């Protein structure tokens, strides 16, 4: 046998040397970064933060402690490792793309190169924003790590936010201003100029609120934020779905009235599918849905799930009479006539209320479609809704242009109540925060909205005492609301990573 006998190459993967050459390669590299958006379940920040907020308890089964840990700030083994891994994987894939994009021959098609690059910047910022909100103190990686050199110390949140803001600014600048109506169906869920601008607004409000800063390190100011949000409101083509109920499949008036998975209100929407067909490794299904579904039973029209994130009764009662958002957001077991049909079984922290937005439905359930109810729920998640953009607009304009702020708020409330009789006169930020709680309930915003008002506000809202000790919750001020960094990751860092305060 000659030397060649031992020289083989894999048949099912390409080597790095042979990749990053064509625009198709570049697109695949970009898609790999998108595909992390779906890594879900325990790594889903919306679920984690809802349970940590005042609106939900842990729930699940009596013997489950996975969800409970967020509710009660219990430090568990490797709590949050799914989120940690997810975000760093997304960041890595975006960084690999950015590192290699100049090797690709676009043959003069600079527009495509510019668009892909902008999308990669958007995704990196998106992942970093979730990561830094949850953990506060994270290493800042702007390119893939060199082999053997993995112990990167945490950096200040300021520099992370500065990267996020500049990534998003580049995305907003380089992505085409195609209005909603002009976006091809097959590109739903792609990062757009509007998504980048809306996310900039959210990042700005969170950072300046939580860290009590006037702007993002000079990279992005209040004026910039107002301009970005105004651009989305005026030019994006996105708008409110006329009836609030029809935003969500579970609360829509009918299957035809449902606004759809990529409707006019979803400024940035994470795409899910049942096409993983029971293969849990595909990670393309919405796994939050099975978690929040009513535990272990099918109460039509709802499908079954694990009963996590049981809803706090207080949220249900916060909606004023006539507010369509109450029945659109929360399943009341008694209120919907399930009192005798419902079997509590081993449901933990049962409140009588479950999340309705994104709860799985019997109609077109994943099992029937050939997938599995565990992995293949497929309802898209609206990360940023136009209503949120309006409320951000109201908040940003509150001081400088109260009229505009009032107008944005009115739009939201008019829809919720189906009339103009329920308008309130906007005079303080607290009103906007209250409105956000109702409008965006159970969508993963509440916890962060509390934190950006300060830990005192967060503690006051989240603390809960009850005759049943199961429901006793106490916000741990010492943590500043940050989550614990997974213990295994700290151990692996050879002492480089430091645990967050209050979690040591």
């Amino acid at each position, binding site marked *: 046998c000659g030397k060649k006998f031992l020289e083989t190459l894999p048949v099912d993967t390409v080597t790095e040397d042979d990749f990053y050459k064509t625009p198709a390669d570049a697109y695949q590299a970009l898609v790999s970064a998108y595909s992390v958006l779906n890594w879900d379940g325990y790594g889903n920040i919306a679920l984690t933060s809802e349970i940590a907020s005042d609106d939900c308890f842990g729930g699940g089964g009596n013997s489950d402690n996975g969800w409970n840990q967020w509710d009660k700030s219990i430090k568990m083994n490797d709590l949050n490792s799914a989120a940690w891994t997810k975000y760093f994987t997304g960041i890595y894939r975006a960084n690999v793309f950015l590192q290699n994009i100049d090797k690709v021959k676009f043959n003069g098609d600079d527009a495509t190169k510019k668009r892909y690059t902008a999308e990669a910047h958007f995704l990196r910022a998106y992942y970093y924003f979730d990561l830094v909100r949850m953990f506060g103190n994270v290493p800042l990686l702007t390119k893939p790590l060199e082999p053997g050199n993995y112990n990167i110390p945490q950096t200040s949140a300021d520099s992370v936010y500065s990267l996020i803001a500049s990534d998003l600014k580049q995305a907003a600048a380089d992505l085409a201003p195609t209005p909603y109506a002009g976006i091809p169906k097959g590109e739903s869920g792609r990062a757009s100029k509007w998504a980048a601008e809306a996310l900039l607004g959210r990042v700005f409000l969170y950072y300046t609120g939580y860290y009590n800063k006037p702007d993002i390190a000079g990279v992005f100011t209040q004026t910039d934020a107002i301009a970005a949000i105004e651009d989305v409101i005026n030019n994006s083509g996105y708008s409110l779905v006329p009836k609030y109920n029809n935003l969500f499949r579970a609360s829509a008036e009918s299957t035809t009235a449902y606004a759809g998975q990529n409707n006019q209100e979803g400024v940035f929407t994470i795409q899910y599918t049942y096409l993983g067909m029971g293969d849990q490794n595909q990670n393309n299904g919405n796994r939050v849905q099975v978690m929040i579904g009513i535990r272990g039973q099918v109460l039509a029209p709802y499908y079954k799930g694990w009963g996590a994130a049981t809803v706090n009764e207080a949220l249900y009662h916060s909606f004023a009479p006539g507010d369509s958002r109450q029945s659109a957001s929360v399943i009341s077991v008694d209120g919907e006539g399930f009192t005798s049909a419902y079997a509590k079984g*081993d449901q933990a922290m049962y409140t009588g209320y479950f999340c309705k937005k994104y709860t799985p439905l019997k109609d077109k359930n994943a099992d029937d479609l050939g997938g599995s109810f565990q992995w293949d729920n497929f309802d898209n998640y609206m990360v940023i809704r136009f209503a949120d953009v309006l409320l951000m607009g109201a908040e940003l304009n509150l001081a400088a242009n109260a009229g505009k702020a009032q107008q944005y708020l009115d739009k939201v409330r008019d829809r919720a109540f189906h009339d103009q009789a329920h308008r309130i006169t906007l005079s303080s930020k607290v009103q906007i925060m209250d409105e956000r709680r109702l409008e965006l309930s159970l969508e993963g915003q509440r916890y962060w909205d509390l934190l950006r008002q300060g830990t005192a506000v967060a503690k006051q809202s989240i603390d809960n005492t009850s005759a049943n000790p199961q429901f006793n919750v106490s916000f741990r001020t010492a943590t500043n609301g940050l989550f614990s960094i997974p213990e295994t990751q700290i151990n692996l860092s*050879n002492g480089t990573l430091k645990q967050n305060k209050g979690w040591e």
Partner: protein
Amino acid sequence: CSLAAAAPPALHAAAYNGKAYTLPVKQTLTGRVLDAKNGSPLPGVNILIKGTTRGAVSGADGSFAIQADPGEIIVVSLVGYNKQELQVKGLTQMTIRLTVSSTGLDELVVVGYGAQKKKVVTGATVHLSNDDLVKNHSVSVEQSLQGQVPGVQVTSNSGQPGDAMKFTIRGIGTNGDSRPLYIVDGFPAEDISFLNPSDIASVDVLKDAASTAIYGTRAANGLVMITTKKGRAGKMSVSLDASYGLQNPARKLDLLNAQQYGNIMNEAYINSGGVPPYSKDSLAKLGAGTDWQKAATLSNAPIQHYSLGLSGGNEHSVFSSSLSYQGQQGIMGLPGRSNFERTSFRINSEHKLYKDLIKTGENLTYAHTRQRGIGTGNIYNNSIRGLLNASPVFPVHNADGSYGKSQTATDEINPIGAIDYTQNNKTITDRLIGNIFLDATIINGLTFRSEYGIDLSYNYNNAFIPVYVLGANNSNLHSSASQGMYRNLTWNWDNTLTYQRTFGKHNINLMVGTAAKKYEGYNVGGSMTDLIIADFDHAVISNGRNDSTRKVYGTRSTNALQSYFSRVLYSFNEKYLLTASLRRDGSTRFGANNRYGYFPSFSAGWIATNESFLHTNWLNFLKIRGGWGQNGNDRIGDFRYLATVNSTYRYYYFNGEKSIGASPDKIPNPDLKWETSEQVDLGFDATLLKDVTVTFDWYRKTTRDWLVTAPIPDLVGTGAPTINGGNIENKGIELGINYTHQFGEVTIGVGGNIAFNKNTVISIPNQEGVLHPSYNGVLSSNMDEYYRAQNGMPIGYFYGLKTAGIFQNQQEIDAYTTKGGKKIQPDAVPGDVRFVDLNGDGVIDGSDKTEVGDPNPKQTYGFSLSAAWRGFDLSVLLNGVGGNDIVDGTRAYDRSYNNYTTAIFGRWHGEGTSNTMPRVTLGDEPNNNYRRFSDLYVHNGAFLRIKSINLGYDLKKTLLKRWPLEQFRLYVSGLNVFTFTHYRGLDPEVGYGIDSWSSGTDLGYYPQPRTILFGLNVKF
């Protein structure tokens, strides 16, 4: 035979054909050779005139003819018999009676690429004959070796027919695959499930690196050299072996019946602050309830074995062939769900093409196996675990024949229904394995041998899932079928050139060779749902109706190895022995930087009893030997060194339209190199008082540069590289003693072996010095890490909290404080476990965890006893392990309604009632009695097992004397007769572990059957 052929010509006598071939005119001496014990003729005996090259071989009737002069000495030898030297006194008809050798010193034993007389072997090897193997009546060769070789540990992962065994030689030396390499008639095989133990002539286990280094990269975990039966010139010999046995579980877990269960559950609810679910009335009505174990036990499950052998030949060609069938039904599950069948045909033959100078032949086996099994895997696929955990308060079947449903919890499922619905799968394998060879003597003493072999297997698997509803969250709405097919081909080509010469008292044997191996695997399969005819018989993909669920996959993989090797064997006057070897291996699994590895070895021996000053009556033979060598290991996946970009599971569906993504799947490591195992061995072999043989070995085996997935932080964002790192040491001693003696008509044999091994991890390549489990939820979905590999500790040791009894009352809880007076377990209530606050910080958490057990046995041992009298024979085999622990994870604590064994009656239920077992709860107590891993889970795993008792009688000796038979033996055997152990689980022989380096985890074990077997051996 392939092995003798590569051996020195002096050992070739068996191949001589009864005719003298030196010319000087002598007189013809004729005679017969008989077995001294039973007087039967012995064919194939070598007869050699001492100091000459004249030789002959006895024929089928034991007769021979040879040219000899009076005064010359004839040397009569046959493998397994004591050699005799006789002086030729006259031209008479001689009758020579040979006695069975108890020491086997002149036996040929197989070494890498050749054979040597046992006497002059300088390595640590153990030789077993077919007789030793068949005593255990095992379906697998591995299991038949259990307890018979010091230093070899064979542990079942499950007792299900056809399930694989864990086989380690001298402790686990790697974090990867620790199986040894099997060489079957010269062909290297990674898996020997095709082999029927009754086809095997002998097994040589090579334990030390000096013996195995000639196989370089492939033998880091030791070598098992298997020789199948060969033909002999002479009359046709026919043998028939048949046995039929009945199997039953040896043990049953003593689980609570329904009423006992109801009481315990009531207590648990009360302790957890709930309302007891069973009223007095309902308790009384519960009765015995369902015995799930019994419901799934298949009593008197048959095990059968039939084998027909045919062998013979003439002076030009010899052959041996066999046709055999083995069938074993499982003892658990539902009828037909757990069984193994193997039908095999084997033919070995050898032909002389030109005199004795050029020979060719082949060894070939075809095996057809069919296997069906129930789940014996992790907590999600373990049927036995389901049976042991199900609450006894719901029926197997409802009155209408449907499966009973739990009323206790929505997520509890009927374990029998689960077997029925989810365990429909079968595997059919067709395998052709064997080699052809050419053996040529070029000039006197110089031989060339070429051997080309293949291992071709087709493996078909098929599974079916019906539409079913077992529980709210356990249902399947669409029937589905999946089918898959693998084709695996390994070819191996060895070429060796051997030069053997004696110069006076110097005997020298030089060998050089090359080897090449290539593996190619193809795999295709698919699945579809909504079958037109929804049953297992019709579970084919094309029966599916729902095209959108059609899934297909196909892969291909290949790897290759290229090797060069050489060896010198030198002996001076059969007194001083030296061996040295060197192998160079190249593997496709490494990049250009480190593709090749070198593996040297040296060993030496001194046969002290060949020194005149050591000639005593009591010490008949003593050989002192020592050796050092290195081996390599390349058993990692392919292309781990290479930077690859992968598309698997990197999809995203924009509005339901699939886009494929691609990103690097790992950090490449172009410097990846071989794992090296280095071993020193010192030992002796002795024969005392003619009948007692003693073998002793001390060894130290160090494995370094493990091929590990580097423990890198997840912030890297991609797969971890495979790196070299980690170092582990196994050291120990092994002792084997055998005694055989004939007292008149009675032959007695007693044997014993014991091995002590100490396993220590030396260095793990990270600052922490710890290798964590690949996955934590082994015992239950939320359990913390319970085993690890860590510097200074045995590999896979159990890592948890230590406990110090049960809190009897509130005062004890209040008094359990740090020095500063801080309560250590403020949330505990009486009846909860007291955990040891190891670091004294006043909090019980992960930093208080420490070693709470070791799954690696410190001792493994075996005993055998045999006796023969006239036609009767009796043998008893025992084996055991000591110094190891088992984690009993049978009961899932995260499901409060699961059943308990009656051991729960020993729980704490009031002050003074127990100091070892906490109170029962629903698993929600703040103290986390079982939710945190502690020594409560750890139990002593030592056991001694009576593995087999065989009693036989040969009718040929009495009733059938006149029949033209050699043997007509009837026997009865008991297998797995009794096990002495403190372990309370179903079986203490628990090999299970998720990582290859972890073991001793009992998640609910498929029990090994206790068998009674009746059999027949006929030869004519």
